[in-house]
């Protein structure tokens, strides 16, 4: 972890993406749909031999478009920063820019 991350002074992504690796069928519709292009196709094969969607690790805005585009009910879960954390984030950014 960097000092910036540890002290919480780096700007975190507003969103977070989780993929259920064994429910995903690798159709790539979420990759196509994601506006900031924060999803890629994993090199790893899941249990059924599909290459599955995988979050890049950064860039998610929590818009939820991938969730709407995904044909599997539970393959994608989208999270967003809670309000308190959003405020903290803004402060951290303000501090860091000083």
């Amino acid at each position, binding site marked *: *972890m960097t000092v910036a991350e540890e002290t919480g002074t780096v700007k*975190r992504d507003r*969103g*977070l993406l989780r993929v*259920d690796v*064994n*429910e995903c*069928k*690798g*159709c*790539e*519709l979420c*990759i*196509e*749909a994601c*506006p900031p292009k924060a999803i890629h196709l994993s090199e790893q094969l899941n249990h*059924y031999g*599909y290459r599955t969607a995988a979050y890049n*690790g950064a860039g998610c805005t*929590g818009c*939820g*478009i991938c*969730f*709407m*585009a*995904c*044909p*599997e*009910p*539970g393959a*994608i*879960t*989208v*999270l*967003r*920063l*809670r309000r*308190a*954390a959003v405020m*903290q984030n803004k402060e951290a950014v303000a501090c860091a820019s000083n």
Partner: protein
Amino acid sequence: MSNAMESDYEVVHAKPKVFYETYERKEELQHQTHYCPGCGHGIVHKMLATAIDQLGIQNHTVLISPVGCSVFAYNYFDVGNIQAAHGRAPAVATAAKRSHPHSIVISYQGDGDLSAIGSAEILHAANRGENITVIFVNNAIYSMTGGQVAPTTLIGQKSTTTPLGRSVANEGYPLRMSELLATLDAPVYIERVGLGDNKQIAQAARAVRRAVENQVRGLGFSMIEVLSPCPTIWKMSAVDAQHWVRDVMEKTYPLGVVCDRTKDRQPRVPADPAPSLEEIPAILGIIPDDQPDVQ
């Protein structure tokens, strides 16, 4: 990212509660639908489940599943389920709704089911203005049986029963069911949506919700036609199939609200309460022993 940071996030989009936790009715792969990768059914299912969740009607919902790829919709939706014969879902829905008017009856059908074998049933259910919601998933082909021509297949589109491409001379023109049904007086809301890009998908979700809401409000017959990709039968990748919906299908099937009469419709008035059992013989003109014969 560390766990400490993850706890700052809350779930905003997850598997709708209306879906079963695990799909126990399936023989295998009980955590995954049987639909092909990139199939439009899964997307439409999610929209429908979301609408049911948001409207809080899970306990009152009755889903009629058709014959087609979505014959197994009952594996996934944790609501009352009735599986119907090919094309007959609107007739089944008619009686289910009239038997229990408080229930929210959804007829979920594909294009073979609705526009071919079931064309009479959908026409008359729409014409009677049955207070049901019809979700019409149109992928311009018969997928479950391996890719035969549908009434909705595009001109020139190849299928296993039109190997040289659909011809006007032999098969006629693609059937635009939304426009057809909109010519009837009774339907209250008909919209065609597509799954061709992000914007369309968002609009489709709104339309599905609207169609269910109309029934909750007791306004009458609503149908949403969803232009849907079928990567397997179209022999395309899921992303290419999505583009085909937007770039090719929508030239034949324009998106948009085809009829919206919700402002002019009053909610259905509930029927009068049924007479008591004691009153029934008199209603039937049946004379009790202790009364004189009636001429």
